[in-house]
């Protein structure tokens, strides 16, 4: 069997072909064209810091009583409840903030904030907790010894520990007992060239569009646009972690 580098499905390939045709159509001079192809990384190339993946959460759009993002995350990553919610893995949760002075409540989805300077990586004794070049903070489960220092260090309480033997994992999302885990920004989708996460998709499908996924470094991305336009904040800005997840309306 030879190396199969091309994993694009036929429909995507068709789209790319049309895109190439479109790009060719607007070439105004040799070497200069108005349209550049979307930078889908081939599967044999390493991730680089040319991208920084992140999320923009608009808390004002997050609808009360909706848990579409949480359900979609659980489905995408094969997270199943054990009936013991205190220890079940939560990669994303919805939180409610209440201003004690005014009583105003804000609701928003909350997950690993994918810091540029992640405290979980600082404290990991084995190097299992790491930040990928494209900004996604991950746990290498092959190296994780389950000490849970990272869980202590994370100011966002974003990580979970798998306490029990698991079965029926998703082929793209291996996970098992004795390891710490958290939101991966749907890294399996990012690597496949998808430009959305399960939570963002579900939120859009539910009609709220409170979560937008994208490349914080790509001036042509929606998230770049929105970040330039909207006043946004990082949670715990005081820690200077430069998070990849930004919030509007909190």
């Amino acid at each position, binding site marked *: *069997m030879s190396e*199969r580098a091309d994993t694009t499905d036929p429909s995507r390939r068709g789209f790319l072909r049309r895109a190439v045709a479109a790009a060719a159509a607007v070439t105004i001079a040799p070497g200069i064209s108005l349209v550049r192809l979307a930078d889908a990384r081939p599967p044999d190339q*390493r991730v680089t810091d040319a991208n920084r993946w992140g999320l923009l959460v608009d808390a004002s759009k997050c609808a009360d009583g909706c848990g579409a993002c949480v359900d979609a995350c659980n489905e995408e990553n094969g997270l199943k409840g054990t009936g013991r919610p205190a220890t079940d893995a939560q990669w994303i949760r919805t939180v409610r903030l209440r201003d004690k002075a005014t009583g105003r409540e804000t609701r928003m989805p909350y997950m690993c904030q994918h810091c540029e300077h992640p405290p979980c990586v600082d404290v990991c004794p084995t190097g299992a907790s*790491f930040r990928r070049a494209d900004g996604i903070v991950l746990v290498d489960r092959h190296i994780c010894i389950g000490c849970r220092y990272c869980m202590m260090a994370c100011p966002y309480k974003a990580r979970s520990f798998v306490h029990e033997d698991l079965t029926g994992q998703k082929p793209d999302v291996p*996970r098992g007992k004795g390891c710490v885990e958290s939101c991966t920004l749907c890294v399996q989708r990012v690597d496949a060239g998808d430009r959305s996460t399960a939570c963002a998709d579900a939120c859009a499908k539910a009609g709220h569009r409170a979560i937008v996924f994208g490349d914080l470094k790509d001036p042509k991305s929606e998230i770049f646009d929105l970040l330039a336009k909207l006043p946004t904040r990082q949670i715990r800005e005081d820690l200077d972690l430069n998070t990849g997840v930004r919030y509007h309306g909190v």
Partner: protein
Amino acid sequence: MSPLRTFFYGLVAALALAGAAGGAWAEGRTPLPTITKGKGDQCVEPTAVMRTDHMRFLLHQRDETVHGGIRTKRHSLKECIECHAARDATGKPMPVTAEGQFCQSCHSFAAVHLDCFSCHATTPDK
């Protein structure tokens, strides 16, 4: 018969018995692994190389995938499962760790513990 001589004859008898038992073992009391044929004509590397070095490929690939985001299929565990998971009569894939299946069968023969599948899926997606 002196006690020493009794002991000596006893030892010889015991060794002979052990030898006979050993011979029987070698001739099939431990079943040979059942190697089910995977999809396609040939694996990603020659069979002899795969037998000795599959773990080297997997270990290399896992680091590349987890840290570098490299998702080539050639040495990926997911693709191993894709080809080597046998199907039952109803066409449903069987776990590679089930009794007599590809991974389990050989690993049990070689008495090597199989760790991959406490985390990794044992059947293909579909």
